[in-house]
């Protein structure tokens, strides 16, 4: 597979239990020339992504995972999900994806109608790339491309020895001046259940690999975050 080409090749899976919000996010994404699939629950999302419970648990103990595309029928470049859903929440979905050897490299974005700082931090620490406050706008959707481009370039690096990998994908996020590394770095490390609080690792300042538009807060509508 070649490098990322036209936007029309990016496929986004949108998850939301609200029909209106599904329609909205679909239009927003299509306007940005992405292919879109919408589902109304986390479990349907996992189904679409080809997630199989037993297979994931078997794979997690291996050094080199099976090809990431093994279980996926259709390639998905990004998952954008509502937080509050009956049954499996967006957070639960995020967690399941990050625990899965085949799905952990798919960037996940969370949307929520509620501005709850602890919720936001929790999602980011679990590995969400972005957290959008609803209603989501075009300006939010415009922030998605870099995450998808990164996946297109780096998917084949999954099995490389991590020591030799340049930290090109490390990013800095700012919340009230604090720096929290995305868990993307953790994804590239060996499979360990180390999603536990690695806050100490995350406070390093990252100068490498920063793109200019990363320096401003990315949380739509957020002004103050309490610690």
């Amino acid at each position: 597979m070649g490098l990322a080409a036209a936007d029309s090749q990016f496929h986004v899976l949108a998850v939301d239990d609200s029909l209106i919000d599904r329609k909205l996010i679909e239009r927003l994404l299509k306007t940005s020339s992405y292919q879109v699939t919408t589902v109304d629950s986390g479990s349907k999302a996992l189904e679409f992504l080809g997630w199989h419970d037993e297979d994931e648990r078997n794979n997690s103990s291996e050094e080199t995972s099976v090809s990431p595309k093994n279980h996926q029928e259709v390639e998905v470049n990004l998952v954008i999900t509502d937080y509050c859903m009956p049954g499996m929440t967006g957070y639960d979905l995020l967690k399941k994806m990050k625990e899965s050897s085949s799905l952990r490299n798919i960037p996940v974005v969370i949307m929520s109608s509620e501005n709850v700082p602890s919720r936001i931090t929790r999602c980011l620490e679990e590995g969400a790339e972005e957290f959008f406050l609803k209603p989501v706008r075009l300006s939010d959707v415009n922030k998605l491309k870099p995450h998808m481009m990164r996946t297109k370039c780096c998917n084949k690096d999954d099995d490389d020895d991590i020591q030799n990998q340049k930290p090109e994908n490390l990013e800095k996020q700012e919340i009230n001046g604090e720096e929290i590394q995305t868990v993307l770095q953790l994804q590239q490390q060996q499979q360990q259940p180390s999603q536990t609080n690695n806050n100490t690792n995350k406070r390093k300042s990252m100068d490498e690999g920063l793109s200019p538009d990363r320096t401003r807060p990315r949380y739509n509508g957020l002004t103050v975050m309490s610690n």
Partner: protein
Amino acid sequence: MEVDQLQRSFLEYSRLLFHEGFLDGQFSQLQLLQDESNPDFVLEVVSLFFEDSERLLNDLTIALDQQNVDFKKLDAHVHQFKGSSSSIGAQRVKNVCIAFRNLCDEQNAEGCLRCLQQVKQEYLLVKTKLEALLRLEQQIVAAGGAIPMLNEFC
């Protein structure tokens, strides 16, 4: 009516609705997503909102009619209603929903009943106004004109 007359009426009416708080910037965002390839987008979303709202109002009425009100369930319905009204820019409806949720938290049945009446009222108002606005839009399109952008309200 002439196209430009219709367009002026549309803009005037929109401004009024924004000014009175019936609609907010999110409604303009919806307009932005409408184009030649999706000429009925706003109409479709608004129609969905009407259907959804009627169902929710019904559920809310039933929930509050119970001997022992299940406030958790009530809150879940209001949360949905708040979400959908927010998504289409129905500001006043959304604001009543916010107050409604607080009353659910307090388990204040009487307050909730009053709020339900209020949200029904606000919903009916915005429904009437949106229908009128969309009719104007349709007239403009039928007369061969373009729908003026509500950029100032984004």
